[in-house]
């Protein structure tokens, strides 16, 4: 730590940190404004904003489309696209990103490891396996619409619960638990592959789901994910003090009065439920949970009371940005959102690994 005056909290001087905070805020607002403009169907920006300002509901005339001369029918279709596809997708990206960010920060705290992440713990591959299992039963497309999230959710719970059970019985180190997740991840991946052998036709559907996306978002999905976000996030954000104390080790935290077993139970369970719910509707999205807390820590320091809620905010912004990139990188094609997140997250993960080594081993 070179600068003592700046305090230990974050890198750089307060001015730098404030600057960074403004950049993030400005970027977030810009993202919110730009996202509805993007999509495979080109709609003029005036129309999009006019439609947004009108609010949801039936579009009466062409004049609703912001002075662009189109037919009333065309305007109605645009209205549908904006309000039934683009806005729900945006809400889903924001809420799922927030859940992933919150969960990532929380898990990094619980496992006292900066590399923890719902993805790494096997939650995502569990969900993917659940989804693939569905295709073993050859369900129809209509049923799949409802059952896929359910199966993905249940599949995602499995590794979370196993890791949790491993942590409960006996005193296992955070490293062991983290590696348990990594091993489970590999096991579920191979199960996934074998399920797909039963139904090669399902593999296309699953593989697209595997890389994630917001294209299928509906207001119903949004309602569920936002509901989960609010209930899970409220508790996670309140347990910041306990997470801070867990960093001193379980025994010390206990001696200071923290019911570590219960806190760990609640945190792992909530992140599992939250992530499984998000992933069920978006598909597997890696690295949001890993990257967001690190960005936040650089700005506000190590206090989990701030890191967890702000990681939710940054996670939301990160996934929205990735979604925008996924929609606009190649014209008229929507990429799976897992591609941009992994493009950013993968190198960042490597950077963390090697920086950690340079600093002399794990942060303990």
């Amino acid at each position, binding site marked *: *730590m070179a600068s*003592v005056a700046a*305090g*230990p*909290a974050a890198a750089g001087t307060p001015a730098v940190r404030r600057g960074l905070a403004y950049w993030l805020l400005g970027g977030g607002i810009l993202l919110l404004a730009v996202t509805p403009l993007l999509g495979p169907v080109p709609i003029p920006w005036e129309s999009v904003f006019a439609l947004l300002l009108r609010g949801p509901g039936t579009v009466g005339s062409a004049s609703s489309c912001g002075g662009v001369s189109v037919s009333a029918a065309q305007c109605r279709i645009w209205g549908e696209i904006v309000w039934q596809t683009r806005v729900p997708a945006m809400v889903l990206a924001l809420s799922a990103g927030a859940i992933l960010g919150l969960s990532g920060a929380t898990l990094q705290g619980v496992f*006292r490891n900066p590399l923890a992440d719902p993805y790494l713990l096997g939650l995502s591959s569990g969900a993917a396996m659940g989804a693939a299992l569905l295709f073993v039963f050859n369900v129809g497309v209509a049923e799949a619409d409802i059952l896929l999230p359910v199966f993905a959710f249940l599949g995602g719970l499995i590794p979370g619960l196993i890791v949790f059970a491993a942590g409960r019985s006996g005193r296992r180190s955070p490293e062991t638990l983290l590696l348990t997740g990594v091993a489970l991840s590999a096991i579920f991946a191979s199960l996934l592959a074998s399920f797909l052998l039963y139904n090669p036709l399902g593999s296309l559907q699953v593989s697209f789901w595997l890389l994630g996306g917001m294209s299928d978002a509906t207001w119903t999905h949004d309602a569920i994910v936002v509901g989960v976000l609010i209930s899970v996030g409220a508790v996670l954000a*309140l347990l910041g*003090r306990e997470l*801070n*104390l867990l*960093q*001193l*080790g379980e*025994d*010390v935290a*206990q*001696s*200071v*009065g*923290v*019911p570590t077993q219960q806190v760990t139970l609640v945190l792992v369970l909530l992140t599992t439920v939250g992530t499984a719910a998000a992933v069920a509707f978006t598909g597997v999205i890696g690295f949001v949970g890993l990257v967001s807390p690190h960005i936040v820590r650089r700005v506000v*320091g*190590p*206090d989990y009371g701030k890191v967890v809620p702000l990681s939710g905010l940054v996670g939301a912004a990160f996934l929205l940005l990735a979604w925008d990139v996924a929609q606009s990188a190649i014209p008229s094609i929507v990429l799976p959102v897992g591609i941009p997140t992994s493009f950013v997250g993968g190198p960042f993960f490597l950077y963390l690994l090697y920086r950690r080594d340079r600093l002399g081993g794990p*942060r*303990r």
Partner: protein
Amino acid sequence: MRADERPALAATDLTVQYRETTALAHVSLEARKGEIVALAGPNGSGKTTFVRAVLGLIPRSSGTVEVGGVRLETLDLVARARAIAWMPQEEALGDNVPLLEYVQYGRYAHSPRFAPERAADRATARRILSELGFGGRERSGIHELSGGERQRLRLGRVLAQEAPVLLLDEPTSHLDMGYQLELLERVRRLVRSQGTTVVAAIHDLNLAARFADRIVVLHHGRTVAEGAPSAVLAPALLRDVWGVVADLRRDVRTGLPYLIPSLPTMAAPPSPAARGLRVHVVGGGGAAAPILRALVEDGYRVTVGAVPLFDTDSQTAEELGIAAATELPFAPLSPEVRARHRQLIAEADIVVVAPFPVGPGNLANLEDVPSEHPRMYLVESAGAGTRDFAGGAATRELGRLRAHATALDGVPALLRALSATPRAAHGEPNDR
């Protein structure tokens, strides 16, 4: 029993079993309010196990722990944290949090769940920081501290719990001497002013003796000694528990005992020939101490004279339980003491003259050694310079004795010469 008569901490009959091995066997410890108890013992004696068993961090197979008369296991974690605070031996470094935040961690049990830290907690943390000498550094991060400072800060976190009982597990490990004393002195002062009870595992007996009101010594998971530092620090205990030979001294300023440990000599066990042989050592000023120790270890019956009270030789003699002719400090040898000295010489099979400094006051020590004594050894120490402060008289006396005695260089040579006694030569193997 009134509340204030109850022990602040009562750990009764604690036993901890790890599969086959018993890490702690029926250890009990009571500490009064305001008392400082040191838990001493070599590595692996069960100190840390005891501390962790008291806290309930490891399962006990027997025993109860009461704090202020209340069974610890009946309390929830928050109430426990208010009753007893713990400073572990090792602790994860954790994140680079500001010092103030870190000390405030100790306030967890004092502020309601989910509530942001109260102003009162922050004030307590601030006060403790300044008491520990961190004033004005509240915002710096713990990673910026040195090892000693970090230990002090950890103490701050423990003090912030404001528990009536503190369990400190090797609070001074990893600290150099200055920091050790400083830290323990701070604990002492804070504890005295607040009537806190402290149980501290300290493997360094000297530190324990300076710091504690009472020492409990553990060995192989059992209590082997307990009492005031001056009563507990006995060379026999040191030998049995730590496997070291130690010189017991008294700190001139504090009057507290302290030890100078050394590994037992690797010499052969006493030969039967040595047993029963009586050796008198003429000494003073500490010159006889190593000889006395070596002879006692080798199984000789040893006497010493004539030495001033409180000098190293007489202290060593007292500690080894050796008969000695002693004189008041700085006084010339009186006729009575000289008579006693001559008697000891006469009764001895062997006389050893240590390389002690000779002045007018103790010149008589040499004069009282008769030239005709059958077996005499003069131990010299090469390169020690003159030890004649009697204006040539000492040199003269030594010359007289040298004519009848065997002159040797150093203690090992003396031991070799003694073991090659005429009696040992009669069929006693030397290399046993």
